């Protein structure tokens, strides 16, 4: 490995390793468009959706995230899908999960990557066709003593 290719020597900044290309970042506008592609322009209500994500993230490589939706999860009234969006990663649409009455509860936990402090939005698609959303602001600190890419 030649010195010029090392990303080492950096006591701060995990950002380069997660997503190095600033031109590849999404924007709040792209997030809005990605949300519209899912809702097809339908009204999004605020509420029912709780996004649990640590307000201060110690390393953007692995950010624990849970979404719960207030729903009885019956045949007649349940959550069909949960979507996560962000406004700063290269791709605004982070994931979508398919749920149904057999889920019992509308709950999803996973871990995502975040390349900077930003706003995260969770949107639930209900069986009646309605959309509900919750959001959280996340602050990503920088990792200390980062290793070079091996």
């Amino acid at each position, binding site marked *: 490995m030649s*010195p010029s290719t*090392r990303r*080492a*020597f*950096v*006591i*701060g*900044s995990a950002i380069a390793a997660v997503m190095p290309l600033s031109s590849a970042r999404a924007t709040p506008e792209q997030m809005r468009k990605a949300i519209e592609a899912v809702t097809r322009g339908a009204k999004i209500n605020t509420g029912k959706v709780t996004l649990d994500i640590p307000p201060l993230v110690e390393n953007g490589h692995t950010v624990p995230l849970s979404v719960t939706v207030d729903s009885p999860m019956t045949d007649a009234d349940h959550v069909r899908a949960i979507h996560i969006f962000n406004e700063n990663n290269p791709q605004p649409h982070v994931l979508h999960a398919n749920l149904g009455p057999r889920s019992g509860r509308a709950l999803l936990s996973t871990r995502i990557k975040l390349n900077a*402090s930003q706003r995260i939005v969770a949107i639930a698609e209900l069986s009646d066709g309605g959309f509900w959303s919750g959001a959280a602001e996340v*602050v990503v*600190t*920088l990792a200390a003593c980062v290793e070079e890419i091996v």
Partner: protein
Amino acid sequence: MRVVLLLVALLLSGPVSAQTVVGDAIPQSLTGEPGDAARGRAVVANRQVGLCLLCHTGPFPEERFQGNLAPSLSGAGARWSEGQLRLRVVDAGRLNPATIMPPYYRTEGLERVARAFAGKPILSAAQVEDVVAFLMTLKE
């Protein structure tokens, strides 16, 4: 003109140029030229170049997560003279051997320096002057 440029190049091609310490200061510019405060601000704020904000806080409202291991840079230009700041950036260990502040313009007496950095100071003479010029603007 060509001769002058060649001389400058020769002077800067060594690891570090000579400095004269007077008391607790280096009164003379390392390059013979005044630094540029705007460039200096960028060096100080850059966490891969100046590294300053890993330990210091300072008047950088746009920079989150500044360190708290060292005094704030705010008011540095009022507390110290230009020459005093220059010595503190060049080699703070001359004033306090136990300091955690890295020697920004020294290559001698260092142990086990990584190959990529061997014989190179952390900042160039011009960067040191830019940083000093910026710190001198921090009067409050």
